[in-house]
């Protein structure tokens, strides 16, 4: 038997294995761990094991119920894992599938003796090796032992030492902190001043930091290694960063396989990777990162991760080798040679994939969502998601990837630096932000050389030469059109586009498509040469015009071909269902002859971003699996390598492709599906419904009209008026005058938002004229083309949501949940409770009735989410999403009614009865809380508002609200203070409300600090308070910096620009120093009220499982 003895079933009873997840998504630890975790669960369940999953990330696929698994939605801390161990008595625990969080937890459990006490074995790589990979000093020692070159580096634990060592090594130096994920607290210092700043903040998060030689400009290369217990070792893939050393890999553009190294370098680094894995006795997966000098064969080992990682998820998707799945089999005892690759079904798992294509990953940053954040990239990761493009040449993949990562479809040709002067562009090249690639492109557009860009960026000239080629091609084409389109009138039609491209040769058009130009880009390029046209075109118009090129292509027979990802480069025939499209080829690997004619395409969510994350992948996975089970040809389109939906087993055919209008049409042409599901992947695919509908694609679920009515603010409000449903007063303003007039009528505060809102981009609440002016200056010019919507903002109102499914205008199910925070906090950032605890039955009844009216009035036919505000029993509708919402997985899991599945039944047109849930049958309360990553975003103000800022979420269950609330807070790193607490409690009426929890805070028996106003108020109520000040001693920031407090409550009086600015330094410092920070009064009250149940919760013997 390949399985380890102690994992074999005894007396017919399956052995239990604990698998830790990674918790809420945060920067540096995102969806990739749901992918690795869910592959692991599958691999373990297949081997007759019972999997105990501990992960509070309720939207993950791995926390779905299953026959052989048990789910604990608890914080991943030694305390809770110990509780679960006591209850479940597992045979073993697996540390390597839940990122750094899970790894750290298992290491702690081992050190504290818990694992020994309960006889729980650690599967896979053993703790001793994990220590080496995690502790910098042990790592250095070990590398020296095996003669692996490492950059000189010194561990220091104080500032004086740091300065001394840096001087010895010579600036520039890199500071890294030990025991930190995603390079937290790391940085690049040119001189001692910069060094001081970085070391100070690094030492706050970690007892030890590392000072090492800067390898700026060296190539950054990574190898993914797999090793089994007998020592058989392979490398799955190598990857190379487009951005040389200095930018965190998570923030780098990454190409796989490596493109600028030769065979000698490859095997030199590969040999070292194998040697390291061997010496550490790795069992399972690990990755090794190198810096390679671009001018000779010198290299250094930078770090190793003895666990699944972002890179391993990427490598799995890049190669078609399911690393996590195989690694899971290996940690329970299998040898590589005993396994086959389940993607190909023919090759041995002891096989290094050979690729005949390239893949390129581009990170997605949402830095615009955070006020004050520095956009510069460095050794600290800032991106929140990523996409991967697959193609046959570099131009193709970089063009594809840049279109995937931003929805504007213009890709690399987006004119971001078009208006910038040369100096601004040079600055961008020298000190890169998330936009550097566009600056490089603009530099080439302006005729600069490869050397010019290389000298400033150190990016390998091989990469640059391709970008130059795209720029040159664009220019050539433009010149050609300028000469020929001079006569075009002031208007341009689809036919003009068709005609213009008729003028270039077929070969050249194929060439343009092969190097990655989309029809959209080609159309836009043509328009830009029509010098008589002065106004700009909307995306919608360009999309429509681009059909001219599509028509021409069809006439000329220019189609993309479908290629398989098979790990063997076609050396062996395989059954892989993992596909991509390219114009750089002539032959289709698959034929649609065997299509059953009942295909259903599910559009995935694309890159994770703020506002669209794991929860939409969960919905996509549910959908694809549903149709697969129904014996439809289930087809998925998605381009996000971190997702479960892009796992080979979720669909019948996986197109790892752009979610663009053009590409989706291409796939529809190939697959001829019965219908398309676009309402389960969030806003991104939802935006495709209207253009797809216009070309007569059959969309399952809501009709196009329904979607338009819900999305278009004007239509939406008009229908609500007609249905006699209340909504906050609003107007759509096309000029400043209209804005002023509206405010005269309704008064401040007002909510302003641009017409098409995606997770609240540029949405803001203006409390006074100053903030209004400030926020309006952030949006584009207000015009007829770009109207803004202004509505009366109602303060101190409760926010309530209703998630559900409708069929043909009738409610099938509707479930109401409440927010803890009052209206004004984006629903994605708010803390949500289900079943609701604090709304009157009357309110629920009014809401359910309103939902019925809306469902009928908009003729909803599919999943929906409607948001309300309530003040007393006065209910107003603020939003209706005719699609699956962020809260679907949470509500589904807490209520045990799978909303996604019901939505699929509706889309499949199955007979389905109305479902009434008796809430008294739900034995527990669920609280969903948001995870913020402010700690990684240098300079960001950690305040929450109408613009969403959270990067992830958790959902925890408790026998009552207090339990669930405490757990959810702990899982989002709001932790009971032990050192001290700092209070600023907002407006006078907030101060009064705050008294509700003051006793509970006082009972903590820790020093309480407060800013002047709050302190005076509290003292007047008889509490003993230490007063702190803004700018005289004792200063508020100092007590934070000195570590006298570990919890900061900071409630703004209002959200005006001044008030925000005043408190920002306290909040920022608190976040930087790792304090728990709460900035919302209702959340504070709910949290500290829950302390009444603290002891009860933490002394329970049995945790609740799902």
């Amino acid at each position, binding site marked *: 038997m390949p399985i380890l003895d102690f994992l074999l079933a005894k007396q017919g009873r399956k052995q239990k294995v604990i698998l830790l997840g990674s918790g809420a998504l945060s920067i540096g630890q995102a969806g990739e761990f749901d992918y690795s975790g869910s592959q692991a669960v599958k691999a373990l369940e297949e081997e007759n094991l019972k999997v105990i999953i501990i992960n509070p990330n309720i939207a993950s696929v791995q926390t779905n119920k299953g026959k052989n698994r048990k789910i604990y939605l608890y914080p991943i801390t030694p305390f809770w894992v110990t509780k679960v161990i006591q209850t479940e008595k597992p045979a073993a625990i697996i540390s390597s599938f839940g990122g750094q969080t899970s790894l750290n937890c298992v290491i702690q459990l081992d050190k504290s003796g818990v694992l020994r006490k309960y006889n729980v074995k650690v599967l896979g790589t053993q703790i001793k090796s994990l220590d080496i990979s995690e502790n910098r000093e042990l790592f250095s020692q070990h590398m020296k032992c095996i003669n692996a070159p490492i950059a000189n580096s010194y561990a220091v634990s104080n500032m004086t030492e740091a300065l001394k060592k840096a001087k010895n090594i010579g600036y520039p130096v890199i500071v890294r902190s030990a025991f930190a994920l995603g390079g937290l607290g790391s940085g690049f210092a040119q001189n001692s001043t910069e060094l001081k700043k970085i070391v100070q903040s690094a030492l706050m998060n970690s007892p030890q930091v590392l000072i090492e030689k800067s390898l700026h400009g060296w190539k950054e290369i990574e190898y993914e290694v797999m090793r089994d217990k007998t020592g058989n070792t392979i490398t799955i893939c190598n990857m190379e960063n487009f951005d040389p050393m200095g930018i965190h890999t998570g923030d780098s553009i990454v190409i796989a396989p490596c493109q600028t190294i030769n065979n000698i370098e490859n095997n030199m680094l590969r040999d070292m990777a194998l040697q390291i894995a061997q010496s550490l006795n790795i069992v399972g997966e690990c990755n090794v990162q190198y810096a390679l000098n671009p001018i000779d064969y010198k290299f250094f080992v930078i770090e190793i991760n003895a666990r699944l990682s972002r890179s391993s998820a990427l490598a799995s998707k890049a190669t078609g080798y399911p690393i996590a799945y195989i690694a899971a089999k290996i940690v329970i005892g299998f040898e590589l040679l005993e396994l086959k690759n389940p993607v190909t079904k023919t090759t041995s798992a002891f096989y*290094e994939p050979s690729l005949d294509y390239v893949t390129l990953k581009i990170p997605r940053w949402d830095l615009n969502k955070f006020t004050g954040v520095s956009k510069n990239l460095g050794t600290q990761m800032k991106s929140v998601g990523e996409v991967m493009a697959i193609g046959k040449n570099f131009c193709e993949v970089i063009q594809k990837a840049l279109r995937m990562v931003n929805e504007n479809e213009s890709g690399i040709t987006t004119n971001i630096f078009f208006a910038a002067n040369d100096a601004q562009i040079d600055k961008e090249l020298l000190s890169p932000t998330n936009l550097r690639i566009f600056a490089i492109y603009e530099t080439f557009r302006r005729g600069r050389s490869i050397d010019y860009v290389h000298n400033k960026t150190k990016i390998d000239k091989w990469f640059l030469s391709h970008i130059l080629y795209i720029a040159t091609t664009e220019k050539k084409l433009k010149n050609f059109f300028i000469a020929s389109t001079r006569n075009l009138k002031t208007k341009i039609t689809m036919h003009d586009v068709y005609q213009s491209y008729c003028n270039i040769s077929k070969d050249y058009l194929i060439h343009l498509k092969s190097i990655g130009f989309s029809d959209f880009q080609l159309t836009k390029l043509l328009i830009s040469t029509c010098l008589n046209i002065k106004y700009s075109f909307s995306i919608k118009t360009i999309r429509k015009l681009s059909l001219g090129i599509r028509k021409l292509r069809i006439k000329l027979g220019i189609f993309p071909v479908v290629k398989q990802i098979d790990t063997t480069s076609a050396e062996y025939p395989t059954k892989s269902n993992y596909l991509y499209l390219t114009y750089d080829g002539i032959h289709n690997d698959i034929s649609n002859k065997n299509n059953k004619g009942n295909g259903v395409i599910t559009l995935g969510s694309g890159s994770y971003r703020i506002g669209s994350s794991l929860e939409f992948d969960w919905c996509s996975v549910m959908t694809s699996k549903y149709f697969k089970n129904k014996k439809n040809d289930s087809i998925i389109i998605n381009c996000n390598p971190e997702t479960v939906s892009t796992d080979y087993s979720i669909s019948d055919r996986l197109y790892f492709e752009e979610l663009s209008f053009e590409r989706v049409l291409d796939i529809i042409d190939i697959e001829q599906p019965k219908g398309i599901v676009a309402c389960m992947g969030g806003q991104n695919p939802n935006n495709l419904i209207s253009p797809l509908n216009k070309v007569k694609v059959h969309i399952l679920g809501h009709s196009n009209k329904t979607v338009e009515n819900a999305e278009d603010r004007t239509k939406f409000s008009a229908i609500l008026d007609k249905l006699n449903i209340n909504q906050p007063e609003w107007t759509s303003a096309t000029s400043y005058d209209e804005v002023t007039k509206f405010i005269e009528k309704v008064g401040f505060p007002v909510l302003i938002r641009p017409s098409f809102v995606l997770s609240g981009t540029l949405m803001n609440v203006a409390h006074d004229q100053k903030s209004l002016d400030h926020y309006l200056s952030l949006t584009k010019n207000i015009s007829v083309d770009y109207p803004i919507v202004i509505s009366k903002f109602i303060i101190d109102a409760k926010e309530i949501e209703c998630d559900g499914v409708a069929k043909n205008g009738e409610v099938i199910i509707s479930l109401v949940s409440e927010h803890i925070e009052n209206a004004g906090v984006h629903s994605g950032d708010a803390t949500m409770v289900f079943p609701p605890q604090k709304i009157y039955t009357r309110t629920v009844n009014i809401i359910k009735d309103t939902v019925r009216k809306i469902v009928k009035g908009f003729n909803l036919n599919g999943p929906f989410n409607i948001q309300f505000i309530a003040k007393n029993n006065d209910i107003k509708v603020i939003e209706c999403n005719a699609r699956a919402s962020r809260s679907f997985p949470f509500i589904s899991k807490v209520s045990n009614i799978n909303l996604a599945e019901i939505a699929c039944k509706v889309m499949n047109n199955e007979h389905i009865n109305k479902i009434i849930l008796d809430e008294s049958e739900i034995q527990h309360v669920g609280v969903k809380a948001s995870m913020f990553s402010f700690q990684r975003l240098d300079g960001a103000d950690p305040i929450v508002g109408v613009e969403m800022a959270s990067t992830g979420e958790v959902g925890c269950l408790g026998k009552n609200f207090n339990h669930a609330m405490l757990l959810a807070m702990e899982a989002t790193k709001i932790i009971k203070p032990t050192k001290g607490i700092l209070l600023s409690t907002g407006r006078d009426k907030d101060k009064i409300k705050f008294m509700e929890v003051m006793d509970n805070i006082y009972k903590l028996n820790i020093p309480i600090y407060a800013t002047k106003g709050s302190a005076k108020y509290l003292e007047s109520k008889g509490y003993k308070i230490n007063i702190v000040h803004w700018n005289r001693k004792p200063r508020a920031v100092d007590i934070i910096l000195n570590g006298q407090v570990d919890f900061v409550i900071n409630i703004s009086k209002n959200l005006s620009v001044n008030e925000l600015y005043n408190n920002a330094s306290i909040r920022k410092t608190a976040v930087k120093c790792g304090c728990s920070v709460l900035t919302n009064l209702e959340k504070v009250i709910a949290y500290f009220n829950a302390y009444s149940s603290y002891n009860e919760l933490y002394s329970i013997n049995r945790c609740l499982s799902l």
Partner: protein
Amino acid sequence: MVKHSYRLTRNVKKAYLQLSNGIKFSGIAIGANKQVTGEMVFNTGMLGYSEAMTDPSYLGQILVFSFCMIGNYGIPIPKNGNLFMSKGHESSSIKTQGIVVSNLYDEAYHHDRGVSLESWMKSQDVPGIAGVDTRYLVQLVRKSKNLFGKIFTDDSVIQTHNKFYFLNKFNSNEYVDPSKYNLMPSISTKSKIIMGNKYAKRKVAVVDCGIKWNILRMLIDRNCKVELLPWDNNFAHIDCDGWLISNGPGDPKNTGDLVKRIRNNILNVNKTKPILGICLGHQLLALATGADTKRLAHGHRSHNQPVFSLPEKKAYMSSQNHRYSVERHSIQPDWNLWFENANDHSVEGLIHKTKPFISVQFHPEASSGPNDTSWIIDYFVKLL
């Protein structure tokens, strides 16, 4: 059939690849403007094109690179011109008839590049075609038993092949199956060559069947003196500590009386001197022991061939380039199966039960490909 591809050059000249099964590809001419024919073979390695193209085992073949971008790091040419000492070259010149690639990159910025791939091909008078859907071509090659191809341009002329002896009587319009000919005279050294440190304690006699330079480099690095012998040497009375029978092109049975000389003058007279056979050398040695060889349905030509060592119960990644293989059932009783292929279980290595005779089908010298089995050379040197 056309797949349009891009190159970062201005002058694009059309080229064609005519296959013996009737399919014709169009593409872009690269390298020399010349018409050639050859047996179609592919390699799925993602790197190592210069090593592959100079590998004598590709004699008479047109090599298809399945990876989509070739030429990225140029061709290493050391300043002193000593190609032998420079990794990246496995013989003194390109041995493939021509190459087929998807996208050719003909600039190169790698620190170790001497020239670009294309100018190197031009200087060596070797043609190629770019812009071919090589994945499709690999599928065609894989599916057919024997596929030949012809690379030509609109103005290339039919001429006699003159580069290698066995092709002399053919012109560049005729498909020649290299396995039908004894390729040894075309590829083996003409005279004895002594290499390595003359004070080295150990001396290896090497039968040159088209040896890859990295085998020699590795022996010399391990402090061995090497005597490189022409294939038609009679091998008797050679003063040495051990024998190495090298890799090379073609059918092991089509090597004149080479097998007989190996049997009589190396194998049978020898009781203690270690022997190592590599690739073709392994097949020749097996034939000399009385075992048989066969032609595989499709060859192994990649850097990711998993081989399993039976005595160690351990697997290794190996680099391979062969179409023939030793018949498993024909292994002689005094020999053990040492390695087998983890995918198709074909014979990958033999070891003598009592004597220090070993042979492997894969390439322990790698170049290009993984170095995981370089210990076999160490093992051999230790036996000396």
